[in-house]
């Protein structure tokens, strides 16, 4: 009788109790809602936000593996854990290496526009002896403020390597793109400048000529700039 009792006790420990599942569920819900709120409320930005939400996903995976799958509980399923970590290693290689290789490919074999964009971001003035057209030092800055659906000033006359900053004072989201409604292009490798809150966005004028811009969501908002 006592061995039987011992047996069932061990059995339920291996497979978890209702309490295990309740704790697992509550932790999982918490770790789902926190990253959701961080993203929706824009409490964090950029890479910090990215790393935080990925961190929460990994944390939640371990919580579910422990509370729902009961991996590592009881003496037996050691080989399951070994197999799991082996697979996890393969996944890191598959996903990590794919991103690494494709990113390199993108940088090294991309069209001129992409090279211009990437080298502008990282301040690389030449690749393989060829100038990239990237500006390493910026000069003057021009501010274009959007108020009431109108861009001010509506025309900017600038020189190469100056910068233009767009600032959206309206509550509506703006997607500034270049060219005209009928002939959409990109500028300096930049397809779109998204303005969905008070945050200003700056572009570097690394391409010479006469350009126009407009809002994809409200094409009546437009303007021009000339780069000497």
């Amino acid at each position, binding site marked *: 009788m006592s061995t039987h009792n011992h047996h069932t006790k061990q059995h339920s420990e291996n497979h978890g109790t209702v309490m295990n599942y309740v704790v697992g*569920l509550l932790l999982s819900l918490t770790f789902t809602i926190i990253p959701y709120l961080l993203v929706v409320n824009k409490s964090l930005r950029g890479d910090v936000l990215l790393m935080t939400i990925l961190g929460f*996903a990994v944390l939640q995976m371990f919580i*579910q593996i422990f509370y729902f799958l009961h991996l590592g509980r009881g003496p037996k399923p050691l080989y399951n854990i070994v197999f799991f970590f082996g697979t996890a290693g393969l996944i890191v290689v598959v996903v990590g290496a794919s991103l690494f290789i494709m990113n390199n490919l993108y940088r090294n074999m991309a069209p001129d526009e992409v090279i211009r964009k990437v080298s502008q971001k990282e301040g690389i003035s030449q690749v393989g002896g060829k100038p990239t057209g990237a500006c390493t030092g910026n000069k003057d800055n021009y501010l274009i403020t959007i108020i009431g659906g109108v861009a001010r000033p509506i025309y900017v006359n600038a020189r190469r390597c100056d910068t233009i900053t767009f600032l959206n004072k309206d509550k509506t989201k703006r997607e500034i793109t270049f060219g005209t409604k009928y002939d*959409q292009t990109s500028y300096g490798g930049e397809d779109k400048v998204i303005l969905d809150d008070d945050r200003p966005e700056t572009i570097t004028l690394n391409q010479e000529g006469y350009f126009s811009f407009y809002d994809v969501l409200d094409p009546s908002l437009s303007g021009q700039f000339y780069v000497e």
Partner: protein
Amino acid sequence: MTDHSLVIDKEHEEAADDRTMFGFWVYLMTDLLMFAVLFAVYAVLRNNTAGGPSGRDLFSPELALAGTLILLVSSFTVGVAMIAARNGLKNQALTWFGITFLLGLAFLGVEAYEFYEFIHEGHTWRTSAFLSAFFVLVGTHGVHIITGLIWLGTTLVYIVKRGLNKPIVRKLALLSLFWHFLDIVWIFIFTVVYLMAFV
């Protein structure tokens, strides 16, 4: 003597259970590798929108959260159902597995609604590499959910007709493992596909 052979029988049975579990676990890990490849493809292609809409334009975070919460709760109910099944409580097990089934259907409904909206607006898998990768990754998960629901549905009919016996409890254990696994994969789809579109 009889007592002794009973213990040996039980040990044999548990060893067989363990082997079955391990075999299924190996299957899950290979399935996970397939998902890893699809995740890699999605991660590489997520910005290649070819002038079409990006994830930021298309996705609704509320809808994705709703689907995630439904699937999370279903992962909980399948666990509770499994405890009832192991203790031989047929009606309790049927109730909790039934709830799991309905939650699975609800999740599938959310996903189908999202797909329908995208396609209805003209954003299909042919629009861009981003959308191809999206439909394949999320669609593959959806096919797994459909498989799980068919498996669960037929098993429930079996339990109603023949009751809870040892082999069926073993099958249910595999099914619940499968369901938890799909929930974990979804957590990463929720994060990498839906949340990361808004970063």
